[in-house]
């Protein structure tokens, strides 16, 4: 059984992003880039499923310009067996991304596609569900536990009302949430080994994928800022203020 796992290159989660003054986007020049943290969790889960003897091969996939191969190398150093780079310099929105993943799933025939529930740059939270829809596969989003039992997966999902469990037939798309696992640290010898693992490069044309209808970004602006307030010296002072504002009785 194969597992396909999606990897996206994003601005590192520790970076305080800056909106460009001309409204054309956020500044990314010289900014630290990393694998989307949710995707790291997806890679880790794929590896754990393989290590438990329930999968034979883990294939990491990314979509984007050449430089995204850095993140594929990270996935390979974590333990993925091989990687596929769908190379494009265009901005790829979720529906096109899902079409690409669908084409790869048709080609590789994995039993599970594991994706992060959202990328921390565009915060869309769409690609896994779109892939589920396009393939007519089951989807189990926001997973905090995944148990593979033969041809089904039992997935615990973190939803607003608590923890929901779904049983889905494989093949299925699973999107992962933060508490599914803690990704491993990459060890130096594995980074060296990863350099010898294969990365296959494909284009949208190779996969016969057409760009889907897209939204147009008209401008990027800084959000309305909350001003820092005041520091109070005592609970008594705080209580007086909150009572005056009618927030407490």
């Amino acid at each position, binding site marked *: 059984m194969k597992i396909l796992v999606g990897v996206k290159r994003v*601005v590192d989660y520790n970076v*305080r*992003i800056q*909106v460009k003054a001309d409204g054309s986007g*956020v500044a990314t020049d010289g900014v630290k880039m990393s694998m989307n943290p949710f995707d790291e969790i997806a890679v880790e889960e794929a590896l754990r499923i393989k290590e438990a003897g329930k999968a034979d091969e883990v294939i990491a996939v990314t979509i984007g310009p050449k430089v995204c191969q850095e993140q594929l190398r990270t996935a390979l150093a974590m333990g993925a067996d091989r990687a596929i780079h769908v190379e494009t310099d265009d901005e790829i*929105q*979720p*529906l096109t991304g*899902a079409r690409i993943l669908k084409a790869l799933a048709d080609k590789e025939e994995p039993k599970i596609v594991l994706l992060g*529930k*959202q990328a*921390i*740059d*565009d*915060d869309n939270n*769409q690609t896994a*569900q*779109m*892939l*589920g*829809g396009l393939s*007519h596969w*089951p*989807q*189990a*989003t*926001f997973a905090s536990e995944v148990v593979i039992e033969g041809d089904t997966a039992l997935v615990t999902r973190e*939803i*607003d*009302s*608590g*923890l*929901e*469990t779904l*049983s*889905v*037939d494989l093949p299925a798309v699973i999107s992962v*949430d933060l*508490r599914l696992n803690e990704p491993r640290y990459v060890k130096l010898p594995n980074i060296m080994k990863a350099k010898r693992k294969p990365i296959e490069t494909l284009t949208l044309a190779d996969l016969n994928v057409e760009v889907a*209808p897209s*939204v*147009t970004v*008209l*401008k*990027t*602006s*800084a*959000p309305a800022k*909350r001003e*820092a*307030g*005041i*520091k*109070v010296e005592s*609970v*008594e002072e705080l209580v007086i203020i*909150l009572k005056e504002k009618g*927030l*407490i*009785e």
Partner: protein
Amino acid sequence: MSKVLVIAEHDGNLLNGSTARAVACASQLGLAAVDVVVLASDGSAVAEQAAKLTGVSTVVLVQNPVNENAVAALLAPQIEALASDYSHVFAPSTTFGKDLMPRVAAHLGVPQISDIMRVESATVFDRPVYAGNAVITVEAPEGLVLGTVRTASYPAVTQDGAATIETREVSVTLPSHTRYEGLKTSGGGDRPDLQAAAKVVSGGRGVGSEENFSVIYGLADKLGAGVGASRAAVDAGFIPNDHQVGQTGKIIAPELYMAFGISGAIQHLAGIKDAGTIVAVNKDADAPIFEVADYGLVGDLFEVIEELEKAL
């Protein structure tokens, strides 16, 4: 004719408050009608609640035993069948809407606009990116506009409406590959729902343990507040996941938000930006939470809560 369909979120008995917020956003599109669809097993009670939402013209009730639980793979084909009558389809950007809508979008071959926070026109919207540290203005392409509504950006519509309830049969083939197995709730008891509460008392890593969280619950109960938490507190097992506030948890807009022992990572702040008044209590005077708090108090949270309880 241009009209919008809002997908109702509910638990079979009660309409979730997020629906009234999504209707508020949908009403700003300036279209001929705002309709709500209730997909349920036995949905007449929910449909009646939806019919009271101000601004709603028609509540479409689709009853099917498979709709007993909200499973995206089963709901999506039914919504696709209804979508042809509409120019827009919206849902709240809760885990319900986030799970469901992209699947609908994929089938219909249209992009989705996630987390709409402002309507500029029927096709131009603002939405947050980078955990709310930037806002993009986006234009939907021609055709059906599909979106989820950032509920914290819209106060719920009032309940002065009297919409018509129309029962519809939707005959589509539904897959059998996805089965609902159960739901474990954290059993908040009578505490107000986090996303609807006017007041929220929240605890972070500084609370220290699951046992210590009882002081957060205690204060919340005294104030009639909902209980929130930072990711750190949930990760540490102090409190269940459904209390998490932030970029990947719940985005909330209470009138009063009180943060105890929360340092204020940007991912957490993304969830509380729309709160009316933020109070922060933290031992560390340099904690980033103080950069957004209206009232900050540097001190031991347990001592502060004890004093607060006495003063209330």
